[in-house]
């Protein structure tokens, strides 16, 4: 800061300019050791376009009736008759938005289906849209299919007993719907977990899961690795199966009775893997996850450490979480506000009520910021709803 003054003494005039690029939080070094364009702490400012701008205001689109339960996930799809459905899943059932209502209209949601069992609300709700139908699973032995026209049905019978399956994670690869870390049983009350099992449907038919009746369906237990499945991403031709201590490539083959093979990037007992099932998020070729030691992104270029500047503070918040955090990668907040970021929402205990501390990682400028919402907590993954 000091230069030689005109008298040769160290009294000197100085100026310091803080301007773009603002590079976000840096909490792993002392406040006087970070770069000038980093900050040791800030909240509810966003760093887009070289500005420090207060974040967008959160508003209510529609209330969700308390009697319908906790909204755990939002999804949207277009059915075979070109109707758009905006769907919310709670622990009680599946609800869709009624058409033609003004913002904040109460009773905007109509029940489509009532669950006979409650979802495990500490596990993520998994959605997948395939062939104009919405598939929903949430770690019970149920995979629901809804075509938007008739009542949702359970479509995951896996043997002739009959046994049904659901899973923690849902994916799509090589024309097949994939269930990972499955939960199976004859009834929702008598279930067995298979944390290393991957099931795939018949090719082009997500309702056929029984290998006895359709040779295209099948399953595999990844017994050659010591850990359980904690997520899935399909960044391209191959899938990535995330485990707590590793990552495996799921490679489609030509077909037949074994349509996939697996390449374990590493199969050791300790290694980089996704330890928090809620944290995995993907967007095109990009995936992000939280390992035991750091936050990583994985893409065509390989693995990249992205948590270095904030990892202590981020993990402290996760350790203190008052409920299940949720994470997703958002490509934009609206058409005029593209902002590709990994959005991790952590519920924390406040003095009076629980509140949300949301960590955002900006992939373009490798920066972290936090958005705090004191009025409550985010209960499911935010969903980008393309309205056309």
């Amino acid at each position, binding site marked *: 800061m000091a230069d030689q003054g005109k008298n040769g003494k160290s009294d000197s005039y100085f100026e310091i300019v803080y301007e773009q690029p603002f590079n976000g939080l840096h909490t792993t070094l002392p406040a006087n050791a970070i770069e000038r364009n980093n900050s040791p702490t800030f909240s509810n400012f966003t760093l887009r376009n070289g*500005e420090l701008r*207060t974040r967008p205001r959160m508003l209510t689109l529609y209330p969700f009736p308390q009697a319908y339960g906790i909204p755990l996930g939002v999804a949207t799809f277009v059915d075979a008759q070109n109707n758009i459905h905006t769907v919310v899943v709670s622990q009680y059932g599946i609800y869709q*938005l009624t058409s033609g209502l003004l913002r904040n209209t109460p009773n905007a949601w109509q029940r489509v289906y009532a669950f006979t069992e409650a979802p495990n609300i500490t596990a993520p709700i998994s959605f997948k849209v395939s062939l104009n139908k919405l598939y929903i699973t949430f770690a019970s032995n149920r995979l629901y299919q809804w075509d938007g026209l008739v009542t949702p049905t359970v479509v995951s019978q896996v043997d002739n007993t009959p046994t049904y399956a659901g899973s923690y994670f849902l994916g799509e690869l090589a024309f097949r719907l994939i269930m990972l870390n499955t939960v199976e049983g004859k009834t929702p009350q008598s279930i067995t977990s298979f944390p290393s099992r991957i099931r795939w449907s018949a090719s082009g038919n997500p309702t056929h899961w029984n290998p006895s009746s359709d040779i295209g369906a099948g399953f595999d237990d990844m017994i050659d690795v010591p850990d359980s499945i904690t997520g899935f991403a399909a960044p391209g031709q191959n899938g990535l199966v995330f485990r707590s201590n590793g990552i495996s490539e799921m490679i489609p083959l030509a077909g037949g009775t074994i349509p996939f093979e697996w390449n374990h990037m590493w199969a050791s007992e300790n290694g980089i893997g996704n330890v928090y099932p809620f944290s995995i998020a993907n967007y095109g070729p990009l995936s992000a996850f939280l390992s035991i030691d750091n936050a990583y992104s994985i893409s065509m270029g390989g693995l990249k450490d992205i948590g270095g500047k904030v990892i202590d503070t981020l993990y402290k918040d996760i350790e203190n979480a008052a409920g299940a955090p949720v994470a997703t990668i958002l490509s934009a907040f609206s058409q005029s506000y593209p902002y590709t970021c990994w959005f991790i929402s952590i519920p924390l205990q406040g003095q009076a009520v629980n509140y949300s501390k949301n960590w955002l990682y900006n992939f373009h400028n490798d920066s972290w910021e936090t958005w705090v919402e004191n009025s409550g907590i985010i209960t499911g993954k935010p969903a980008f*709803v393309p309205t056309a």
Partner: protein
Amino acid sequence: MAVNQISLRGELGWDFPPRPRPKPKKGKKPSSPPQISQLQATASGAGLSGTLPLILVPFWNPTAGLFLINYFDTTNFDCEEDASYYFRMEEAQDKSVTIHKMILTYNNLGQASLTAGITYYSRDTDQYYTASKNIKIGTKIPDFKQHKTAIDLVVTGESPQIFITRKANSGPVSIIRLTIAGHTGEGELV
């Protein structure tokens, strides 16, 4: 797909194709875009439709006892929560500095109130102190241009750290640059 022209287009102030806005009559204020409260679900089915996507956020407000489906309004940066930004703590080889001026350059998004301040350390008392000033920026009708304001705070101490804080609902703030000026202390390190 049936394309329903959702009112969001007009709410965010632009149309396909762009239409010139009617010129306001003399003595009357120019009309503002329709408010976001006119957002509605207009799909022929049951979902949101139109040309503008949204991020839907499932939310629980325990104080009000409400479950909500929220969204972030990217046309409105008047955040409903407190906001704060702390700059790097500066050092002058462990010498005391005097800061006598700050110039804030901001994007005029509308009227806003904020607090600009400096925390600094006194070795004599081994304590940190804070000096701050409340300021108002922006104009009632935003022009989205860069404006500047001077903040006359004079503090002397070690390890100065500038901060900006803003109370909830105090208007949208967009900082482009902050310049501080001062002098370092005389003589050798003591």
